[in-house]
């Protein structure tokens, strides 16, 4: 793979990630259904995670696992991709799941309480 193509990937990967984040935020901010709002949050989380993992990637790098023989073959760890963002993303994914679960539980309760998921009708608390 030549460098020009890889240069496009710079824009493609980051651009996609940011775009997905924004699409998710758009859903969160515009869609009237509470479930759509939560879906939007989940989508933007996905984009964010992709962004973080992409930061750790190095061109031609290998996974950060010292499988038997790795050290003998490569002698150096500089060929490995950055493990730190991966570790962070692990945490972020799990936390995101927890938050999504809580949000969905709230959606269920709101539906029980109001009989609708339309966010415009769930405005008892205002001003």
């Amino acid at each position: 793979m030549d460098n020009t193509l890889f240069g496009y990937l710079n824009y493609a990967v980051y651009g996609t990630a940011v775009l997905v984040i924004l699409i998710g935020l758009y859903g969160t901010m515009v869609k009237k259904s509470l479930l759509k709002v939560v879906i939007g949050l989940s989508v933007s989380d996905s984009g964010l995670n992709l962004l973080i993992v992409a930061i750790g990637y190095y061109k031609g790098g290998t996974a950060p696992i010292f499988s038997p023989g790795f050290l003998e073959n490569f002698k150096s760890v500089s060929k490995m991709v950055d493990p730190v963002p991966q570790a962070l993303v692990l945490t972020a994914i799990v936390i995101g799941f927890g938050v999504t679960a809580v949000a969905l539980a709230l959606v269920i309760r709101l539906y029980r309480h109001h009989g609708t998921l339309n966010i415009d009708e769930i405005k008892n608390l205002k001003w």
Partner: protein
Amino acid sequence: MKKVLVILLLATLGYYVAGTYFDIGFGQPHFIKGLLPVKDIYLAQTVKSLKVSNAVTSIVVNFRGFDTLGEVTVLFLAVTALGSILYKKMNVLGERSVLFSSSSIVTSGSKLLFPAIILLGFYVFIHGHLSPGGGFQGGVIIASGFLLMLLAYENYSVSHTALSVVESLAGITFAGVGLLGFMHGGTFLQNFLPTGVLNHLFSGGIIPIIYIAVGFKVGAELTGVIYTVLHEKGESNG
């Protein structure tokens, strides 16, 4: 109108965010020259002093083990919050939602698959320090095994108490192992066991222990999440 405004706002935001990350660059070394990024230390120490093959594992469990402790707490809290939000006073367990009625092929298939999935989960988190995977992944796999059973069998039930006990014990193991690090004048979560040989199952000191605890905990917690939500029979205006 509102949509246009939102799109404009998001476009501006996207312009700045994307611009920032385009500056950082993909796949290229992006750290400022002359600095020693911590990842190099992590990679070096993973092999040298921890004898762990999977660098992500060593970071998640040891270098940044504190994050992981917080993270399992977040899940634990999510379960608690979920229970608190969906708690109903009258009937402690709501009627079970039935997503679909499964055919006998599905049920028998699930029955066959279930032990295999559970076993896979155990394998994944026991070998967390050697290969991709670990506590989270294993725990999630175990949880999906239970999910399968819960979906396939309408009457399949998991003991809530057992889940809670497993969860608590795993959590206590994590925090307790961390506190044991204070032995020999060490610090919290410090390794106090012999690290063994690289790429062996019994290597990495306390890392496998913690990862197993995390696996059990995550498995129990996620099963708890699904279980709680599943027992939330829809009733409008209830």
